């Protein structure tokens, strides 16, 4: 008997038939759950040395300025100050903080410290002292004289603005990203399939609207932090709460101009990431201090720094033009976008392109589609990666426009989707893995049944479009659909290594980074399933760049799919080696034995060898052959997961107040590897999406200072803000996925904004096209309707 795992076609039938999964699709408790819940010391700062120097950063009070002079003499004299570093003390080689595979599309447009400061909060000086108080005291004594410039604050006015955010001529680009630095354009992009203009000209109905999405904050509970020290070999070791240990190694090495072999990055438990920790916002500072002083150093950002001196979601403006016939068949989609990358270009080109790439394939019946526009530099905090990575922005615009088209046609928004959405087996040239003239096929898709199920769960037929509750209150329902990807096709790779230890248990070495998602658990489940063993016999180690096999990191919804496939390969390799070594010790041929997880035995079971004994004998003088299984995976495609989201809101017509009553999301993430963990991923993503939709508003002062830099001003949803959330799964089977799985981490954040906007429209006839959907905007819309 040889079982078929994962990446083989035809698995669906095996799964549905005779092979019963023992560990996959089971609600296995998270392996680290009890320890992290009960407060064990496992996070970055819990592990840092008490003797580490404490680092504080002096930040620019101006949105755009040049440092005319900087005097650190008085600050240096404070007892306990170890070093103060300014732009004169750092290498002059530009880099990006974006955690992406080399060659990164993000422009190398920053220095550790620069003579120019480009946003309020940009770094001016690094102060390291024996303790925080001393560092803060010294920080206040650094004297800086600035030449202040007119900042570029409105991203719609950035292109061609008299101020140029990046005047330097040594920006390095790894590839053509359409940069036009003198016009403040960091990147420009165009995708067109078919002839959009002529399809639009021939359409019966045209809907054209402009939508705005805001610069959402990640607001992970553990703020950014890292510490560093020199090890016994004089190598720089960085312990960081990061999603990207291998990229941090590369970024730090480039920024500090030292070989990667001199850098080691260790990731302990992470207190949330959401894409924020896919950008190396803090690691360079302690690293530099440790290199300069030889001493351990640590940096912990407070919440204000986390809000205002790291990265956020790219704010975007997207104008959508839809052409359709009278029956609601969509003929053409045109999306013209503008994205605000702030002062530096982390993730600028890729977030931008993804906003079109992972929305347009949903409506593959359209004859022609176009997505194009610019990413501009402004003098605001840089944008970066945030769960959804552009798709969230694109989904709000496109799905809102589709809902407005349905309203224009007097058609149920569900019906217009049923007519136009992509289905399993169909192709689309924008799907990842497409080649010129050879569009990729959608191998798994249960979107249709997600919509059907969602409709039932929210009781759409009873509630659509609205129900009047009282003279002042009315309830409406709305919906939206979305897709994402599973890793980046052709780029993301992961390796996994499994060791068989002398007592018959395994160590699974990974370079992926469980930031709370439970990925360590589901990867152990995958290994346990293939090796016919139990969860307690799989020990997970992740991640340490000196020890772990290479992994691009946990981002782009990659870990279950990309690393999961690598784990299957490693575990299969291990199985093969167990069978081979076992057969040899039994004096049989490989064909004569099988492995059931505990014993290697011949067909009649008379000759057998336990795994424990095999492991013991292999590491001894007799065997001299510790077994190590190894697997590397990189996807050619990026199979999309899907969600259909349905919102029910209650609107107070007198005040514009919106209460979210119900949210239903039906998810197709392929095979659900762990139902409980997948459910929480979905619920958490939905609530973050609800925050984007209704509460989270980034406010800047007239001079470019971020005002919403604490939880007092920047409201993330609390328990009372979210109504009732219902999550359900409609599983397709992805033939390239581990046991049929696709991703779930990002796709779940995308539907709330457009679905809630649609529900508000269906309740009171107001379309809010600029997020967040606040009572003020709804009330203004109601009053405009009355005055009309």
């Amino acid at each position, binding site marked *: 008997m040889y079982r078929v795992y994962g990446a083989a076609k035809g698995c669906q039938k095996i799964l549905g038939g005779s092979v019963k999964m023992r560990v996959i699709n089971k609600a296995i408790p998270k392996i680290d759950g009890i320890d992290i819940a009960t*407060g064990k010391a496992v996070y970055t700062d819990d592990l840092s040395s008490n003797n580490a120097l404490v680092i504080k950063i002096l930040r620019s009070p101006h949105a755009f300025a040049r440092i005319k002079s900087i005097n650190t003499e008085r600050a240096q004299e404070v007892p306990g100050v170890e070093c103060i570093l300014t732009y004169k003390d750092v290498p002059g080689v530009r880099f990006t903080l974006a955690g992406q595979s080399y060659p990164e599309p993000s422009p190398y447009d920053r220095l550790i410290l620069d003579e120019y400061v480009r946003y309020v909060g940009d770094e001016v000086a690094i102060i390291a002292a024996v303790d925080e108080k001393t560092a803060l005291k010294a920080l206040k004594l650094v004297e800086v004289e600035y030449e202040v410039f007119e900042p570029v604050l409105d991203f719609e006015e950035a292109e061609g603005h008299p101020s140029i955010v990046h005047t330097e001529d040594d920006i390095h680009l790894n590839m053509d990203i359409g940069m036009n630095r003198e016009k403040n354009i960091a990147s420009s992009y165009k995708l067109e399939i078919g002839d959009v203009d002529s399809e639009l000209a021939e359409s019966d109905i045209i809907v054209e609207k402009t939508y705005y999405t805001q610069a959402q904050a*990640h607001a992970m509970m553990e703020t950014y932090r890292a510490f560093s020290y020199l090890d016994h070999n004089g190598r720089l070791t960085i312990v960081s709460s990061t999603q990207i240990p291998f990229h941090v190694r590369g970024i730090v090495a480039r920024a500090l101009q030292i070989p990667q072999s001199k850098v080691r990055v260790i990731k302990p438990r992470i*207190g949330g990431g959401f894409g924020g920790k896919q950008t190396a916002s803090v690691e360079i500072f302690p690293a530099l201090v440790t290199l300069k002083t030889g001493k351990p150093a640590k940096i912990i950002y407070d919440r204000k720094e986390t809000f205002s001196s790291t990265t956020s979601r790219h704010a975007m403006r997207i104008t959508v033009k839809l052409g359709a016939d009278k029956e609601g068949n969509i003929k053409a989609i045109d999306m013209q976008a503008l994205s605000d990358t702030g002062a530096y270009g982390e993730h600028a080109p890729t977030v931008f392109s993804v906003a079109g790439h992972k929305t347009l394939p949903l409506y593959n019946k359209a004859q022609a589609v176009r997505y194009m526009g610019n990413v501009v530099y402004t003098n605001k905090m840089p944008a970066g990666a945030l769960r959804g990575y552009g798709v969230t922005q694109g989904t709000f615009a496109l799905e809102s426009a589709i809902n407005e088209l349905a309203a224009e046609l007097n058609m149920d928004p569900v019906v217009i989707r049923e007519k136009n959405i992509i289905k399993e087996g169909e192709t689309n040239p924008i799907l990842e893995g497409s080649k010129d003239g050879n569009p990729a096929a959608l191998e798994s898709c249960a979107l249709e049944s997600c919509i059907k199920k969602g409709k039932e769960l929210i009781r759409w037929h009873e509630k659509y479009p609205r129900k009047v509750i009282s003279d002042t209150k009315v309830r409406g329902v709305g919906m939206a659909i979305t897709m994402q990807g599973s890793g980046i096709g052709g780029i993301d790779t992961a390796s996994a290594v499994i060791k068989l230890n002398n007592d018959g248990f395994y160590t699974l070495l990974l370079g992926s980074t469980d930031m709370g*998602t439970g990925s360590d658990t589901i990867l152990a489940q995958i290994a346990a399933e293939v090796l016919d063993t139990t969860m307690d016999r799989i020990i997970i180690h992740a991640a340490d760049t000196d020890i772990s096999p290479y992994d691009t990191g946990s981002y782009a919804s990659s870990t279950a799919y990309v690393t999961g496939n690598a784990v299957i390969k490693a575990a299969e390799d291990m199985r093969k080696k167990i069978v081979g070594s076992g057969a040899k010790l039994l004096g049989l041929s490989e064909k004569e034995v099988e492995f059931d997880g505990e014993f290697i035995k011949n067909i009649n079971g008379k000759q057998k060898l336990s795994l424990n004994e095999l492991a013991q004998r292999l590491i001894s003088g007799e065997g001299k052959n510790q077994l190590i299984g190894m697997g590397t995976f990189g996807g050619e495609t990026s199979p999309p997961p899907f969600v259909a989201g349905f919102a029910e809101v209650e609107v107070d017509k007198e005040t514009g107040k919106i209460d979210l009553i119900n949210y239903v999301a039906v998810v197709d993430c392929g095979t659900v590897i762990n139902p409980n963990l997948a459910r929480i991923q979905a619920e958490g993503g939905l609530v973050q999406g609800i925050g984007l939709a209704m509460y989270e508003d980034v406010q800047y002062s007239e001079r470019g200072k971020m005002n919403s830099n604490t939880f007092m001003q920047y409201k993330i949803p609390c*328990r009372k803000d979210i109504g009732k959330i219902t999550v359900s799964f409609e599983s397709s089977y992805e033939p390239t996925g581990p046991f049929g799985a696709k991703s779930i981490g990002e796709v779940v954040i995308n539907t709330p904004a457009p679905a809630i906007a649609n529900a508000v429209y269906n309740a009171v006839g107001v379309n809010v096209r600029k997020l967040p959907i606040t009572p003020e905007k709804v009330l203004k819309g109601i009053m405009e309707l009355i005055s009309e």
Partner: protein
Amino acid sequence: MKIKVIINNQNMELDVAYDEFLADTLRRYGFLSVKKGCDTGSCGLCTVWVDDKPVLSCATLSVRINGKKITTIEGVQKEAKEFAEYLVNEGAEQCGFCSPGFIMTVLAMKRELQNPTVEEITHYLTGNLCRCTGYMGQLRAVKKYLGVV
């Protein structure tokens, strides 16, 4: 200055700065379960008990707890683990950074409220933010733990 306190049933004398907050003092003395998330008393991560009542240790000056009894999750491990199992069984333990503060609030609620309704539970816990879970799984765990239907 020196203060005398009882931490997790142990008498301790602590040396604290006049402007030091309890969360920092506790971490400095090795109670590393205590986390800080916001600096503005908004997130609930730093929740510990002072004289058996949940307080925000990031907003409590250490000098003010002189003579008082402090309980961190290290001091109620058995009870915390009992509830943590409900949490983990729902999959509602995600990054874990907010959990010690959240669990201390749940355990205090159990002592304080008799047969609470879902609304009362939500209200009691509303000062404990969580960015990972979306709260629903935590609520399912609390309801099961307290036997609330």
